[in-house]
């Protein structure tokens, strides 16, 4: 015969584990003559059931957003940073502060490339015969340490700039023989002019090397505090994007245009695959989740690239998000990529920027198609669409204009008020429904083209449909 305590332990154990035959027999014998233990057994089983019926609670919505963003690799997967960025952006817009645009807060002007690494080959040492002309509208690479760019194809013409070894230039005209030299009219960013192709023994401007095993990007981000965070990443031809660590490689500083050329060339040569990404968990960052992704954004026309660096894992993480729609763009090559080859840089071009804000309303789990990486993903992901997506930026009651090359633009107080009011009226119109996501994009347009840059996915703090900026509504 077993005692009460043993009987209780067996009854408790029986909830989770089948009892051994012996145990069951002895327990049954005890229970047959023990009302008290039968009562205890009933209590134990009831408590077990009650535990299973505890009120449950869903995780906050932002966690779903973060998981979905990671799963979809829609831009940066460092959700916390993205959310912070979004919050900062919205806050800045709301208070009439600076909206920092694409290559501003996410400083991509300092994205530099050297397309011929790690194999150090490019320059040919033997004197070439007169090489075939480089194709107009193509790209070439500077093979000497310094190369003057002049206003005319003459050695005596005014020097308008200097190219450096490794610079990738577009060929606008050439080859032209003048002044005992062969000249090309080239362009690198804002710099346009004539450069000599070779001297008697050495090629100075040559063909872009064949796609090698890797491209190297040096990405630099300037924080609001002024601190710089930079990192070198290597994009391999199989699409991996990795950090090579400390590197003695000479880096080239390129402008936005150079960045475009890089992406253009990378896609054209098949280096850049759709949704290239590399996910790693660096040593010493246990539990962390670091991801780089690279893709290209453009509705049409010029490619806009951006980079995000992680703020909460500065020791290791740099999230490069060169935007969306790579697969669509790849199909449009090459014409769609040569939009502004004949732009006259001497005339500052004024682009019109619109802040496009979409709000999604609806139940938990609603995501707008804009939240996904590309059309292919939208097609294959079966999620309920939001009950409604309202776009207030199209047309937004104002537009922000600033010259090409400007890093940021400020909303006037009136513009900020207009934005606030638009938010507020939307919120009021939707009554009690929560804002499930907010989508902020910049659309810019010039004579030649328009393009769109997504600035964030889901900002935090939108916990009701009152004025999201905390006013008294």
């Amino acid at each position, binding site marked *: 015969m077993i005692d009460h305590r043993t009987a209780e332990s067996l009854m408790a154990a029986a*909830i989770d584990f089948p009892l051994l035959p012996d145990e069951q027999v002895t327990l049954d014998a005890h229970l047959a003559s023990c009302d008290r233990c039968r009562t*205890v057994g009933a209590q134990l089983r009831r408590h*077990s059931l009650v*535990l299973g019926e505890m009120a449950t609670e869903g995780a906050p919505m932002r966690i779903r957003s973060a998981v*979905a963003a990671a*799963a979809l690799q829609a831009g940066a997967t460092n959700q916390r940073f993205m959310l912070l960025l979004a*919050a900062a952006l919205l806050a800045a817009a709301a208070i009439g502060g600076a909206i920092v645009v694409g290559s501003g807060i996410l400083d991509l002007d300092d994205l530099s490339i050297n397309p011929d690494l790690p194999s150090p080959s490019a320059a040919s040492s033997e004197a070439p015969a007169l090489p075939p002309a480089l194709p107009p509208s193509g790209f070439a690479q500077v093979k000497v340490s310094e190369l003057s760019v002049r206003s005319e194809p003459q050695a005596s013409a005014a020097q308008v700039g200097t190219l450096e070894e490794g610079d990738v230039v577009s060929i606008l005209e050439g080859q032209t023989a003048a002044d005992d030299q062969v000249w090309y009219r080239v362009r690198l960013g804002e710099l346009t002019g004539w450069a000599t192709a070779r001297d008697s023994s050495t090629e100075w401007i040559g063909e872009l090397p064949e796609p090698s095993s890797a491209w190297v990007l040096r990405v630099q981000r300037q924080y609001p505090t002024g601190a710089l965070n930079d990192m070198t990443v290597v994009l391999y031809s199989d699409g991996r994007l990795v950090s090579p660590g400390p590197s003695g490689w000479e880096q080239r500083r390129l402008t936005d245009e150079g960045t475009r050329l890089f992406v253009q060339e990378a896609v054209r040569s098949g280096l850049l695959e759709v949704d290239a990404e590399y996910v790693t968990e660096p040593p010493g960052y246990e539990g962390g989740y670091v991801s780089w992704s690279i893709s290209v954004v453009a509705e049409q026309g010029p490619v806009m690239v951006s980079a995000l660096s992680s703020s909460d894992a500065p020791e290791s993480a740099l999230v490069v998000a060169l935007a969306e729609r790579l697969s669509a763009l790849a199909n449009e090559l090459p014409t769609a990529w040569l939009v502004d080859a004949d732009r006259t840089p001497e005339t500052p071009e004024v682009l019109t920027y619109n802040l496009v804000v979409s709000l999604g309303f609806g139940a938990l789990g609603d995501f707008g198609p804009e939240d996904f990486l590309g059309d292919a*993903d939208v097609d294959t992901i079966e999620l309920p669409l939001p009950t409604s997506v309202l776009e207030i930026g199209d047309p937004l009651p104002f537009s922000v204009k600033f010259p090409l090359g400007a890093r940021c633009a400020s909303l006037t107080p009136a513009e900020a008020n207009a934005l606030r009011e638009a938010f507020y009226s939307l919120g009021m119109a939707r009554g009690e429904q929560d804002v499930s996501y907010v989508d902020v994009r910049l659309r810019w347009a010039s004579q030649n083209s328009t393009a769109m840059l997504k600035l964030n996915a889901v900002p935090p703090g939108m916990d009701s449909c009152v004025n999201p900026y905390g006013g008294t509504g």
Partner: protein
Amino acid sequence: MAGTRAASVIAAYDDHQRDLFSFLLATTRNRQVAEDLVQETFLRLVRETRAGRAPDNNRTWLFQVAANLAASRGRRLTVAVRAMSRMRGPDDAASPESGYLKQEQNRELDVALGTLSLDARRAVLLAAQGFDGQEIAQMIGRTPPATRSLMWRARLQLRELLETTGGAR
């Protein structure tokens, strides 16, 4: 990540987040930690899926990861700074079944669970999620006999508390 794989992760999230978050809340007894861990759990699922190692049974896998994160979190308390406010989803709203009585019952259970060790608590809460003893033993990395012992002691301890306080009726 292919859209279908991403979709499978999101579907797994929608299927299991509520149970998983509730489990983590009750186990860790800390909302902030539970939020961090539920996110980390699903991010690991993202990684596994991307690496072509999608679990056979998402639910078991998710609870195993969550249970282990909850335990290891006890050893290394690293709570990220919350620089952003929370987003309140409709899911957080009061549901019909979460009335006063339910809340009161939850509170008493919560107090009782709080007296258990973290190991015992997560085992009992895994059982509440429908896992049997063998599964729980595997999930928490103990032998079945050790798990059985852990759990019957925990259940007796809970009974004493709940019956003396008159709760859990």
